[in-house]
């Protein structure tokens, strides 16, 4: 089922009148989530991701805007009646129930015509448990499970009633690195198998990029950009999005455009046709550097880190806003030992942002780029 958010807004009133300052947790969020897709909701801590999720689930009432499931306006519908599955940031498994009871619980709540016979409920519970591979653990209590197992129980509990929408609030945040990788693949697999429209909240860009069909980047309650992960990575609309996506992060420089050329320091590093003369922020992806002894951008060389296939060159530059300039180049290229390293740049890996609002300034990329 598609989920449509129209101008969704949440304002938390200020706690005491004197201090003032209400919090706009989510501001004018409009987006239609296509049926059966996995959406990654991405942003730094406190940007309103959980609040968005809670509004979709019905646990929090929007201050403004509307929510549609399919063609039904559910804005005023209580959480109990929305039929969404929600996996909480810390799972919220009922501690006094076994895994089986936890998974059965949403089914036992069904009323009237939806009521299921006992054996069907059990069957469905085991089905859900099998899907997340915890059918061996059905008689344990949550406290007797590992973090990853608890998380899977939480997913099974959310899935068992076959929700129209599945919401996951940073479900991997409590897991160690390996389990995280494994579980996020599992979530992807389960989502594909069930075809349930899923919203996955995280502040880990890599996580969101790797499993989402679409990502939504938020900052301070405002949606910055929506798109396919690769598109957003290749074409960030502003400096924030550029900085937020990618590891190692984008390199940011102070620069200026004069007469159709981009200057970093005194060096003209790139042709930027069609851009008015102005000071800019320059973002260069680590893979946007080409080792070139005659290249225009010269940095002080710090170290070279070999990472198998690639080499990461760590250097510094006076105009860099990051502590170090980090480039990733093919290991075939030998980095000459010396005090400096020079680069030419791949134009499509270079982004210009206005000084005032940090929004993207596009320039015509020459065809050789």
């Amino acid at each position: 089922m598609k989920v449509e958010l129209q101008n969704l807004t949440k304002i938390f009133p200020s706690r005491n009148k004197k201090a003032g300052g209400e919090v706009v947790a989510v501001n004018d969020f409009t987006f239609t989530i296509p049926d059966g897709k996995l959406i990654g909701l991405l942003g730094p801590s406190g940007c309103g991701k959980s609040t968005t999720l809670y509004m979709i689930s019905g646990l929090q009432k929007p201050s403004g805007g509307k929510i549609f499931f399919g063609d039904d306006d559910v804005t005023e519908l209580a959480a109990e009646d929305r039929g969404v599955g929600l996996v909480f940031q810390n799972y919220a498994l009922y501690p006094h129930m076994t895994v089986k009871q936890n998974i059965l619980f949403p089914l036992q709540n069904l009323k009237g015509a939806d009521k299921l016979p006992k054996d069907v409920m059990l069957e469905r519970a085991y089905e859900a448990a099998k899907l997340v591979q915890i059918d061996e653990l059905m008689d344990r209590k949550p406290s007797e499970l590992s973090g990853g197992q608890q998380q899977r129980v939480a997913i099974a509990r959310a899935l068992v009633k076959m929700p129209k929408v599945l919401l996951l609030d940073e479900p991997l945040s409590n897991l160690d690195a390996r389990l995280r990788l494994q579980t996020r693949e599992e979530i992807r697999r389960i989502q594909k198998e069930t075809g349930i429209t899923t919203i996955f909240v995280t502040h880990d860009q890599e996580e969101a990029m790797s499993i989402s069909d679409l990502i939504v980047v938020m900052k301070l309650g405002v949606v910055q950009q929506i798109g396919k992960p690769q598109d957003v990575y290749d074409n960030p609309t502003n400096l924030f999005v550029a900085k937020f996506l990618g590891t190692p992060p984008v390199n940011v420089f102070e620069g200026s455009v004069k007469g159709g050329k981009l200057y970093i320091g005194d060096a003209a590093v790139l042709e930027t046709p069609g851009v008015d003369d102005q000071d800019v922020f320059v973002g260069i992806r680590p893979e946007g550097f080409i080792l070139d002894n005659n290249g225009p951008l010269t940095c002080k060389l710090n170290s070279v880190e070999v990472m198998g296939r690639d080499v990461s060159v760590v250097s510094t530059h006076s105009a860099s806003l990051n502590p170090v300039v980090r480039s990733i180049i093919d290991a075939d290229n030998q980095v000459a030992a010396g005090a400096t390293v020079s680069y030419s740049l791949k134009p499509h890996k270079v982004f210009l942002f206005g000084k005032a609002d940090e929004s993207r300034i596009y320039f015509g990329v020459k065809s050789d780029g």
Partner: protein
Amino acid sequence: MVESKHSWKAWIYLAPAIVLLLIFTVWPIINTLRMAFLEGYSTMGAVGGATYEFGIGNFKQVLEYKDFLTCLGNTMLLCVLTVPISTILALLIAVCLNAIKPLQRLLQTIFFLPYVTNSIAIGMVFAAMFNMVGSAFGGENELIITAGIINNVLGFFGMDPVNWINAGSSYGANMVVMVVYIVWNALPFKILILLGGLQSINKQYYDAAKVDGTSRRRVFTRITVPLLSPMLAYVVITDFIGGFKEYSSIVGIFGEDMGPTGDPRRLNTMVGFIYDALANHQGRASAAALILFGIIFVVTLINLYVSKKKTHY
């Protein structure tokens, strides 16, 4: 660690407390044991130089005493009636209080007030409320004049006044008054504990239950009560222990006669029995105290066993 070197210091710091405990707790317990097993022991006699033989005669005497069964029966009945009633009421009130946001503090304070009020004083107020003036002195055909507020309320609804506690009142009426009083007296502490328990339950369980489409009734029975079960167990166990030591509440309403005028001792309890014996028959009082201890011990063991099965921790 601080152990070895300066352990004598620790002992010195603890000494005042230990001395007080030895004098006022440990020695009386030992002494109770000793007196209970000396045949027909009395302190006056002992001071006068009499010696007593070891034996279990005191226990036999207690058990043969017909008053003892009355006391035991009263005590048990009060426990069995008041513990469940007060626990359920306290649970409902605590849940309601927890759901109210405005004035919660004020209401909490109001519900806690009885706890800081002297129980004898409360008893006297209750006695006044249930009173029925005139009945004791009224002749056969004389109209009964009621004074207590309860009978006034009953009268307002067109019901006949009930002789709750005065001369000629029935055992059932007496018990009703006692149950109401004891329940009312037990509520504040229980509400306090249960409210604390409720407030410590993670809100996310309720959010999860909402998303799971749980009805209010099921939230209460399947989430709130189980998560509160450790507090409920604590409250029930301590209340049973307190209930077996019921005494001052009856004094508060019926005075030291432990019964309505004309029928003293009818509502006597185990502790009342011990006090009665204490004046002249310390051996018998000690034996009764030990029997009471035994009963409380067994009941508490049963309680613990049941609660271990039923609570989720």
